[in-house]
């Protein structure tokens, strides 16, 4: 308890130092507000434009969350298919790596051309970049089951469905969570990148990424900073949500979740 308190105190201390440094820089080099607004100006903008800020926040959150959830669902399904045959894995797994390495900024315009600008296109972009880590990690978890554990089930004449639900899937859960953890980090980035290209089909109704391009064009640098702040908060929320779920599902039995518990 005491340690948590001191850690929080440290974090606040670092933040205050950074804010002071920020303000001092502007003062020393006399940086104009359109290039770097003061912390105070940013705070004021957050309060003044809170409703449009939260509006953008939720649009991006929705796009990132839906893209991530669908990628978890589809990724797990693909992993289940991959787990059935080594031949299939050897043939198709390299392509999931391709999925990960292809630059999203290069294919985003294509997706917008096919799907039209808006929430759907942004979710789709998020889905595509989240898919690879989930497929790769979950497949690994599904196929790394100890042979004797499978034998144990076979000795009981267990059905394929029983082996899947009672052995392979729970065994793969920690690996699935590694994939989800990675994916949740890039989901927010993916959604915002998507929005830079395809944020909205109607003006003023876009997510954080869309509003960033808008604020930049208008030279509203203080609002731009507020948007960046909101994007970081969103990233944090995703991170903690996944950590909470991981703890909830794994802390009883798995080491990875137990380590976070003892920190």
């Amino acid at each position, binding site marked *: 308890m005491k340690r948590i308190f001191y850690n929080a105190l440290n974090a606040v201390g670092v933040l205050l130092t950074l804010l002071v440094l920020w303000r001092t820089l502007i003062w020393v080099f006399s940086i104009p507000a359109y290039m770097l607004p003061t912390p105070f100006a940013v705070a004021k903008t957050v309060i003044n434009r809170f409703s449009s800020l939260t509006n953008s926040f939720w649009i991006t959150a929705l796009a990132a969350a839906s893209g991530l959830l669908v990628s978890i669902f589809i990724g797990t399904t693909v992993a289940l298919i991959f787990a059935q045959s080594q031949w299939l894995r050897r043939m198709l797994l390299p392509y999931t790596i391709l999925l990960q390495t292809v630059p999203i900024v290069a294919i985003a315009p294509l997706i917008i051309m096919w799907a039209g600008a808006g929430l759907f296109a942004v979710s789709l972009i998020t889905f595509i970049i989240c898919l690879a880590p989930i497929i790769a990690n979950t497949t690994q978890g599904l196929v790394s089951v*100890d042979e004797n554990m499978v*034998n*144990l089930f076979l000795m009981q*004449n267990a059905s394929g469905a029983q082996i899947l639900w*009672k052995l392979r899937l729970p065994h793969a859960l920690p690996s699935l969570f590694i994939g989800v953890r990675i994916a949740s980090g890039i989901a927010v980035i993916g959604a915002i990148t998507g929005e830079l290209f395809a944020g909205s089909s109607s003006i003023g109704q876009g997510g954080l990424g869309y509003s960033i391009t808008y604020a930049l064009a208008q030279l509203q640098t203080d609002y731009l900073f507020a948007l960046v702040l909101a994007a970081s908060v969103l990233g944090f929320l995703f991170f903690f949500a996944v950590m909470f779920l991981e703890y909830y599902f794994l802390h009883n039995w798995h080491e990875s979740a137990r380590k976070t518990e003892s920190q």
Partner: protein
Amino acid sequence: MTTYTLNSLLPARSNGLAEIAFSGVSKSYGNKAAKSSQKVLQHVDLSVQRGEFVSLIGPSGCGKSTMLKLVAGLTSPTSGQICIDGMTPANAREIVSYIFQDATLLPWRTVEQNVGLRLELEHTTRERRQEKVAALLELVGLSHAAKSYPRQLSGGMKMRVSIARAMSTKPRVLLMDEPFAALDEISRDHFNEEILRLQQEQGWTALFVTHSVAEAVFLSTRVLIMAPHPGRIAHDIPINLPYPRTEATRQLAAFEDYITTISKTLRGVQSQ
């Protein structure tokens, strides 16, 4: 339910009622297309009578685990026949239990859920299962740890859970592949006495793989020494030590003699 004691089973043994029978069993791994198919077992004949405790001992890679897998029907012989109580191994699975060296507990299940796994897989009702699991935990002295997860248990406790799970289906044949290899010597001795006590109570037939000569002698009615390249049974040594076998058994001169003889034979087999 009939309870057997080992003594009541001794006459049955001489009746020639074979629980496990191998006749001319050979086993190669690798398909016929692959030229480098490896001969793991060559022409093994074996007859194990009901209630016997037979140990397999031999150099690494001579096919001990393969013998057990054949009995369990987890792999099939390339040629020859195996009968378990008159059935094919695949059909006899219901009366066979398997204990592996690493306790193979499912880490996401509590001790009682692990013990109940096999009952659950064969759709035993929840009430019946709880009743049986409680009795099994009592049997292995783990009632207090029913709600623990495997990571909270010592190696010995994990093995107890594994034994309880193997007993859950009232096996007639128990296959054990180096079950106590990971335990310290004192726990191992203790487990050896307990496994014999369980056998006396329940009367199953045991096929037991070990690398410890002392353990094999202490437990067995017969010790089979296997030789490699290709795997075969090289020596079949009956152990005529009195029952019940306890700590005192280990002090007997005959016990020491068996160990000396078998160790020497084993060295001979290994240096071939």
